[in-house]
């Protein structure tokens, strides 16, 4: 019987290939990378003395006016008051999530309109100067953890930062300019600014 004869090779080959691809391969990759690239293998974490500030690759939920803000985030988390319920928890890096909003849904248009009102209220100087509001600053990212914003979105917030921190606008503008990651070889990728790194550089200005 073909079926029975195939059972032994099937079982043995499944077992050995599992060992190879499910244990040896990931474990050896872990071992090699922890020796050669320990920081990256551990998640590119940023430390400040004993404290872990975060990961350079993972966005944080900036709400204070003295910091540059990232993009809206659609992640949710357990309600601290009632763990059986979920509440919006922006930049929850334990559970990545997108809005998955339909382009023609009321929910999307209402949410973006609310984000727009908030961005306008937070940046009166930019609104007064009639600067266009960049799309990424009012739409949620795919991961809910987007660490970056477009250069336009960073420049849009410069006047606010300068006012709140009481430093010259030109200094902040130059800092943003300096922090832009340009496309590789001039074409691969989009110009962007890492918000956490930008805010850390901002804090460093005062030291």
């Amino acid at each position: 019987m073909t079926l029975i004869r195939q059972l032994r090779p099937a079982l043995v080959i499944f077992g050995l290939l599992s060992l190879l691809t499910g244990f040896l391969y990931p474990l050896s990759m872990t071992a090699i990378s922890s020796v050669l690239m320990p920081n990256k293998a551990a998640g590119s974490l940023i430390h400040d003395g004993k404290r872990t500030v975060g990961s350079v690759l993972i966005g944080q939920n900036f709400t204070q006016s003295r910091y540059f803000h990232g993009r809206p985030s659609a992640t949710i988390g357990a309600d601290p008051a009632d763990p059986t319920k979920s509440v919006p928890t922006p930049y929850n890096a334990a559970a990545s999530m997108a809005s998955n909003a339909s382009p023609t849904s009321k929910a999307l248009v209402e949410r973006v309109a609310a984000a727009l009102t908030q961005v306008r209220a937070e940046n009166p100087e930019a609104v007064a100067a009639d600067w266009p509001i960049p799309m990424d600053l009012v739409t949620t990212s795919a991961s809910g953890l987007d660490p970056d914003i477009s250069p336009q979105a960073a420049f849009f917030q410069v006047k606010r930062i300068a006012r709140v921190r009481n430093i010259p606008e030109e200094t902040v503008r130059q800092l943003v300019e300096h922090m832009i990651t340009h496309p590789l070889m001039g074409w691969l990728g989009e110009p962007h600014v890492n918000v956490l790194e930008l805010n850390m550089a901002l804090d460093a200005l005062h030291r």
Partner: protein
Amino acid sequence: MLFHGWVTIMAFFICVVAMTRPLGGFLKRVLEGEQHVLGRIIGPVERGIYRAAGIQEDREQSWSQYAIAVIVFKVICFIAVYTLLRFQGVLPLNPNGMRGVAPDLAYNTAISFVTNTNWQSYAGETTMSHLSQMLGLTVQNFVSAAAGIAIAAAVIRGFTRRSAASIGNFWADLVRTTLYVLLPICVVLALLFVLEGVPQTLLGSVTASTLEGTRQTIALGPVASQEAIKMLGTNGGGFFNVNSAHPFENPNALTNFVQMLAIFALGAGLTNMFGRMVGRERQGWAIFSAMAALFLVGTVVTYWSEAHANPLLHALGIDPSLGNMEGKETRFGIVGSALFATVTTDASCGAVNAMHESFLPLGGMVPLVNMMLGEVIFGGVGSGLYGFLLFAIIAVFMAGLMVGRTPEYLGKKIEAREIKMTMLAVLCLPLVMLGFTALAVVVPSGLSALSTSGPHGFTEALYAYTSAAANNGSAFAGLTANPFWNVTLGIAMMVGRFFVIIPVLAIAGAMAAKKTAAPTPGTFPTDTGLFIALVTGVILIVGGLTFLPALALGPIVEHLAMLRGTLF
């Protein structure tokens, strides 16, 4: 649409073309059991596996023995993954204390990974233990891809042999592909990914104290090793919920580019392997050209669509210049997201770096159409090629009807039995895709899972069954899968895999048994522009005519509604 976007698309395509020949040559050496560099290093492992399994690798199987071997192997894989997921709570390597997976979800996930679909009804970082990710899912990423390539090789052998009774040995094809093709490339890819910032650790989550002084828990794990095979094997099951949109899975534009290349690499290489095995590389390039044409058209349409801002948001007074950024990552932007969406649905990968559900209606329709065409635009590793060969058979059959000659492909007469088998495979997919969609939009348990109403809700359901039956695995991810969906999607995935594999192996067996006729002046050549145009037309007509009514109810009507400013 910007200049650097076109440069990116062209650079990507040039890289795919450049990879095709070297990979095709190597794949042929491996699958024909010829000498190659890696054989000298890893050869003892290969022979050790055969000894332990008690098989002789050069003892070949008939098509039915080959098919039985495939099925026995798949059943064992299914049982192993299902059991592992159910019991992960009490097994080791579970630093975040994940509980056992519910029965319907474990069933859905096991089928999903065994069939190379990698539909994810779960969120990786909140459901799976590290052990499940490694020993369950990563293993299936390897062996389901290797099985696909093995079957493609067997089918090609059917076309190249004369009056033969066998089409190869499944176990040898499976082991060789895993050892010599998938594993070595994955080692290189995984280390490159770590170098670019993808984590690879067995530790659990880290808690950070952010710049503003709040707490942020960051999920980590052995991501890079899974990421490599997820792309190379066109699997697409992400470590994290948001897949390749997560900065840990895909940290920058370079990793994004490499991931897209990895998705197409083996699918493109297999067209060249096909050409080499049938003794004329041009036959492979003909297939490549038809695939490339469909790929380029899809890419341009998606890029064009997504480069426009959503008119409903533009109307609020937002600057439209960045395009449709809802559900996209800043570092990839429009071109990096649109190209990825096209590539991942051309190949049956299903990894996503942007949310297809939030694409504008026509931009989201391209991924849907790519899957409806049967995942033959480079396609899943192996499955793309044997799927394409079915359309090639239909194309020569039609050409034969037009001139009144018995159709031939590669010197093999195409007769009633082959056409019946081809039609069985080609018709099963739409039946499952459209049939289940129709069911889901009338029963309450189907409707309750949809995240939105109106045409977009319909598209969400259609996308889900299309993705499952085509073994893609991407989603309009607003869908909240409940037991109804988990069970029906599981069935769709099985039909999509096995109702193609078995007929296609039967065709291979029939082809191997036939004599090969020498080409005459009346033979329809299958390595010319005419054939490329004909087969492309067949793919579009079979896909287009079958699905046009459904597309009209979904994305097309939604596009018109959007232009009129209608909200749902």
